[in-house]
């Protein structure tokens, strides 16, 4: 086994090259992204931690198998998030059922972050509480939820979201705007009910 401390100073790209030479270095990549990807999988699939960990295993298996596909033209984090995204969506579609909800804590985070965004609607900021937001998010289409999660929870910029979801930049901007409007509408509907 390699010395883990040696990994910390290395860049993602260096670790990819090292992993191709010695698979033990792949431990460093797993270690670096395991926590981030578990959260991301949970956030977009609304799945439990156990389910997310199962998907995570498949994600790293696929990342390792496809290491040669990564060419450095995009950020490694975008590339690994893309694989995680694809694996999560296909696992989710296999199950064909959506678990109930993501945790309330997560939604409070999302609510706070979205609310701080200049473009988000003020009504939402003032009236919405975490539970309502959780329900509203669950009702959103997958395509809207994933851009909200990537932008506000994973803190990705438009270019990174474009690389992860494999969609043009213009489409990402449009999706994000629509996602905010849809989220507000869902929250408003719940207010009326």
């Amino acid at each position: 086994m390699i010395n883990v401390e040696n990994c910390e100073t290395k860049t993602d790209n260096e670790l990819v090259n090292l992993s191709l030479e010695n698979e033990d270095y792949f431990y460093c990549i797993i270690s670096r992204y395991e926590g981030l990807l578990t959260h991301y999988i949970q956030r977009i699939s609304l799945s439990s931690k156990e389910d997310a960990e199962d998907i995570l295993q498949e994600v790293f298996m696929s990342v390792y198998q496809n290491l040669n596909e990564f060419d450095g033209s995009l950020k490694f984090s975008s590339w690994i998030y893309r694989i995680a995204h694809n694996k999560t969506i296909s696992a989710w579609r296999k199950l064909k059922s959506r678990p109930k909800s993501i945790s309330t804590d997560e939604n409070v985070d999302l609510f706070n972050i979205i609310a701080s965004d200049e473009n988000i609607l003020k009504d939402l900021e003032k009236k919405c509480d975490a539970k309502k937001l959780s329900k509203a998010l669950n009702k959103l289409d997958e395509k809207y939820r994933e851009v909200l999660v990537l932008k506000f929870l994973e803190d990705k910029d438009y270019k990174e979201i474009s690389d992860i979801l494999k969609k043009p930049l213009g489409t990402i901007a449009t999706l994000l705007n629509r996602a905010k409007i849809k989220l507000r509408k869902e929250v408003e509907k719940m207010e009326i009910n």
Partner: protein
Amino acid sequence: MNEKAKEILKSIKDSKVKPISKWKFIFKDYLMWGFFTLTTLVGALATSVIIFIVKDNDWDIYKYLEKSFLGYFLILMPYFWIIILFILAYVAYLNYKQTRKGYLLNPYWVILGSIFISVILGWILFDLKIGRQLDQMCAKNIPYYQGMELQKKNLWSNPEKGLLAGEIIDFKDEDNFVIKDLNNQNWNIIGDGVAWKNEINKEIGEEVKIIGVYESKDKFKAKEVRPWSCHCQKCAQSDGNNHKCSTGGKLEGGKNCSK
């Protein structure tokens, strides 16, 4: 040490999974670009036929058929090839999408770009007479396509409406000759200063279209005679009804065009 990471690495090692070779990813990328190029080239072939059909049509005869220009236009549009062109442009987009950076451009731009390239190359292929050859090949081999050729024949089998076509079987002079029409009926063509449009061989065996007036069951008064199709290697210009040979162009059979 991160226990979860150790566990995942162990499962990777146990499964004996190995990284896929780099050349496979490169090959896939080139393959997709190859398919994109191929579909765009086939699209260019379709475009060359569209250009040929559009240029070969007589867009000014709608008035003889008691139709509006729009109605006539809609009847004669080469839908078959236009649909093929759009399908190929979409397939080209699907291939492009599979390339490494295939997600960066908006699908509409890729489809429009593919059509644009097909149109540019299509003009070149049309100029090389590929469009015409393909059209004739399809007319021989595709049952539905024969209908399109028949449509043209039907349009020019309307002597009562002033439209007649056939092969010259006897030629006295420009105002007096005999044709066998598309239904094998002989017609005496008479006229007074008949306008012979374009480059036509005024001789027996030439296939012509005639605009004129129906006189009797075997007599037709001609006003204008046109070639059955634009049969020059190079149509230098067309005003929609008037195909002209370019200087130095050649008629079918290798005869030189005379201006």
